[in-house]
């Protein structure tokens, strides 16, 4: 049997001007996951700091141990995860003066 994989697009050309979190996504069946964040637009001086979060129930969240990754320019970045339990989301903090960012966020899971 081939391994199963699935890519979810959790944000599509979404514009944010303050902190946000992605919708909860169930991935208990998967052994590994990778976040992809594509910044389409970001205001000068703004920064996007993203932390993978995990949850046993999709309701209450804690940070995954990998630590945050930061983006401050247009482009694509990714972050791998393993041993994450059941639910995944990204917690995103937006910094800078009157910041805005436009993003595509993908979650690729495999198991």
């Amino acid at each position: 049997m081939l391994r199963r994989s699935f890519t979810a697009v959790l944000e599509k050309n979404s514009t944010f001007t303050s902190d946000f979190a992605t919708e909860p996504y169930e991935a208990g069946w998967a052994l590994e996951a990778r976040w992809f964040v594509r910044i389409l637009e970001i205001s000068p001086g703004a920064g996007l700091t993203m932390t993978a979060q995990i949850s046993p129930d999709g309701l209450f969240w804690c940070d995954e141990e990998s630590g945050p990754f930061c983006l401050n320019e247009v482009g694509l970045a990714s972050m791998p995860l393993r041993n994450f339990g059941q639910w995944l989301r990204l917690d995103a903090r937006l910094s800078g003066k009157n910041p805005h960012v436009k993003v595509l966020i993908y979650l690729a899971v495999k198991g």
Partner: protein
Amino acid sequence: MSAVASMRDSILRADTRLSKYHPLSRILFYDDFDEGVNGWCELVGNHAGNLDDIREIARDFRPPQLSSCTFFDIGTHGSIEGTYSLKLATRAVPNHAAIAIKRLTYMRRGLVQFETYFTFKAEQTFDRAALSGWDGNKAPSERQFGDFSFSNDICDGENGKRYMGLVRYLNTDVDGNLVQKWMHKTSVQPTTRMERQGVVPPNQDFHTVNPDDWEEIPGGNQPLCFNETASKVNWHYLKWIMDTSRRRMVELQCNDNVMDLSSIEVPVYDGHYHGLPNLLNFLLDVRTRTNVRNFLYLDSVLVSVDW
């Protein structure tokens, strides 16, 4: 019953996965979500490469999930067989809908029968004030669940007529009152082309031109088994038959309620749609009317035909 039919019937009854279904002569697909998503993907509105062009109502139907039905109080519930079901989840935004689609084309026109075992839930909330008057039986969560639908998108051959059959279970109205009725729609689903041509204004209900373009299916009053809490999952059987040779719905069955749909007019689009000959799409959706996420779960799906 012929010997061949009898043998087929015996084989189906002996198959522990299929014996809970009633397939027509040919099984077009059987989706066990322990095996993956089986081609059910997020519906997205039309665009030509720029996602900003997707009309507002059709840009955020959310990716389906393989769910183990895990809850904060009991842990994993699982599905009827195995662990996983297909889950559609809305955002916690009033009137937000999640829609998944599976896309095929057809070889012949005739009967198309959709069967599934489904359940539905609203996300657990922790507002103590909402528990005022809780009697220990009626779940406040039940009133936080809006509606779910099963539908299709069918286009007769090239330059043929396009239409969409649909059945909706309306659990609550926009004010949170329990309705618990099966509904059918009375207008077409506005398309991207219709909206760009100004034929219709941007729609508030994805499936209809106006939010009120719905009527009760005769015999459609049917409270379902929500079961007292946000984490108790009871699976319901559903069978929905469409006759694509007549562009009509035939019958809807949910558990012991069998509804005759043959007198219901299925709205047909004006004009022709390019690039859709023999289109045969199946859609699932769930919509919340409050700021609470709503979920639709399918244990498995079986679609069979008489061709």
